[in-house]
């Protein structure tokens, strides 16, 4: 239903907007809602990890590193500053040990705080 | 576009060349041509078939030679494939027939060091004006990638 031209064409829409809910929020003071499947923080169930390195191989941003220390000991390190939150690691993991949860990773000026050892396995673990 | 008719016309125009078309997924026909036949071939395609849409020009350095692919489209894809030597690679420009080839030729030219003879506005497209290194998509000797 289109209306004919008028000098104040947008007026009805303005009134409708005024009566409707505001769409912006004052973000840092009010929380943002993330949907359930939002790809946020990367978490790992470390007991499932076998250190196969498939996630490291498929990570497009080189954000995962596997450090093998001999004797079955290894460390999986996540560099969140490089991470693109694409979820490929969760897809590539044959164990289903990795997931991205709907939790926003806040930015920080201190880059080193974003590096995180997500799996640490002693020998025979 | 009837690919058979197009091929027939090209065979007619270049009787000495062995045109061996190859079907490539998805719905594309590759026709190898000698470099100096590309320009006359495109002229024939435009005049006889109204095939004026050049999607892009792909250039690739395979290590031993430079391959140019002219991706045309007219309901179906038709790609003309020309092989140039790595040293002193040059080919006639298509800009007089298809002005829209200008950017693609400039890109191939800067990325692979191919000269397009008769290009009205050569020069870098994506690289900085003062770029003086190797063309970036050339394979370096020694396998540095």
């Amino acid at each position, binding site marked *: 239903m289109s209306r004919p031209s008028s000098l104040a064409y947008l007026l009805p829409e303005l009134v409708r907007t*005024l009566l409707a809910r505001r769409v912006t929020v004052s973000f840092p003071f009010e929380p943002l809602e993330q949907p359930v499947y939002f790809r946020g923080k990367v978490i790992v169930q470390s007991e499932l990890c076998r250190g196969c390195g498939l996630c490291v191989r498929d990570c497009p941003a080189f954000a995962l590193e596997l450090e093998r220390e001999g004797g079955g000991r290894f460390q999986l390190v996540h560099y969140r500053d490089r991470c693109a939150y694409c979820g490929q690691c969760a897809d590539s993991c044959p164990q289903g040990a990795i997931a991205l949860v709907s939790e926003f990773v806040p930015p920080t000026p201190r880059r080193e705080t974003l590096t995180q050892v997500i799996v640490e396995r002693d020998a025979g673990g | 576009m009837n690919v058979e008719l197009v091929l027939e016309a090209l065979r007619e125009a270049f009787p000495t060349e062995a045109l061996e078309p190859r079907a490539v997924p998805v719905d594309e026909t590759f026709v190898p041509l000698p470099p100096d036949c590309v320009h006359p071939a495109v002229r024939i395609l435009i005049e006889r078939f109204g095939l004026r849409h050049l999607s892009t020009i792909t250039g690739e350095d395979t290590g031993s030679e430079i391959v140019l692919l002219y991706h045309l489209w007219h309901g179906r894809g038709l790609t003309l494939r020309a092989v140039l030597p790595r040293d002193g690679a040059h080919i006639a420009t298509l800009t007089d027939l298809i002005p829209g080839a200008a950017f693609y030729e400039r890109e191939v030219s800067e990325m692979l060091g191919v000269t397009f003879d008769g290009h009205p506005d050569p020069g870098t497209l994506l690289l900085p004006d003062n770029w003086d290194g190797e063309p970036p998509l050339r394979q370096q000797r020694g396998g540095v990638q």
Partner: protein
Amino acid sequence: MISEENVLELTSILFAILIFPGFGFLFVCALGFQWIDRWVVAHLQGRIGPPWFQPLADFIKLMAKEDMLPIGAHERACALLPMVSLAAVLTVALYVPVGGHVVGAFEGDLIVVLVLLSLPAVAYFLAGWLSASVFSVVGGSRALLQYFAYEVPFLMALSGPAILSGSWSISRIAALQSQTVWMVLVQPVGFLLAFVGLIGKLKRSPFDIPKAKSEIGAGPLTEFSGRKLALWHLSLHTKTVVGIFLLVDVFLGGSGGSPTIWGALTFGAKSLLILLALSVAGVLYARLRIDQLTHVGWRVLAPLALLQILFVIWIGA
């Protein structure tokens, strides 16, 4: 010899100039109107808008910022122009009654006000011309073209009430309306023309042509920063306040005669109404092009204003 009466008189004049209805009051109004405008526009567009202290915060931030100009800009002129603009607007404010209060009024102050109100436009144009940037030069020439497009209808529209009431004093025009009827009822076309002219004068959307962001950056003010920019903004926002007060006085009957609480309240309500109309007008349209504006100005507004004047002279006779 300074008598006690003289001191009292002096203090009351100083109070009128500096606090109310002078500079202090205007400063508060400028920030307040700016916030109301932004809040209204935001809500019309479905946003929550800025908090009430945002204009003040912006002003303080700009005052504290580094002040620099490009090489080639005329430094002294660039420092002087925002002050000239602000000074002109503040002088105007002395002659425009606010809720019945006025600092200085005399027969013919309407003409002085109209002349002084064009001074910021000239300063704005010069600022563009002298600040060594292509964007500001283009913006400056647009500001001048726009000036010619809106100024003639604006002047003619405002002289209508003066002719009808037989006085060129704003206070008198306002006072006369409380005895008869509001000028807007007699001259609705004149009021509309003055309103459109005011939008042009304030360079508000849809006539924000000289400072069209997507075309020429910030127009004449592109190269200004820090304190100079703060003064420019202050002068433009004060001009908004003064312009609205002027329209209320001339067309809407001012405060309705004597300075009472009720008069002040109605004056405030009328001013807010005009501000609201300005906000809505800014939200409704796309920005016009300068040639389209001059077309509207000379082909539509100016003839209308002329007819209006003839009409006023006819009913006045």
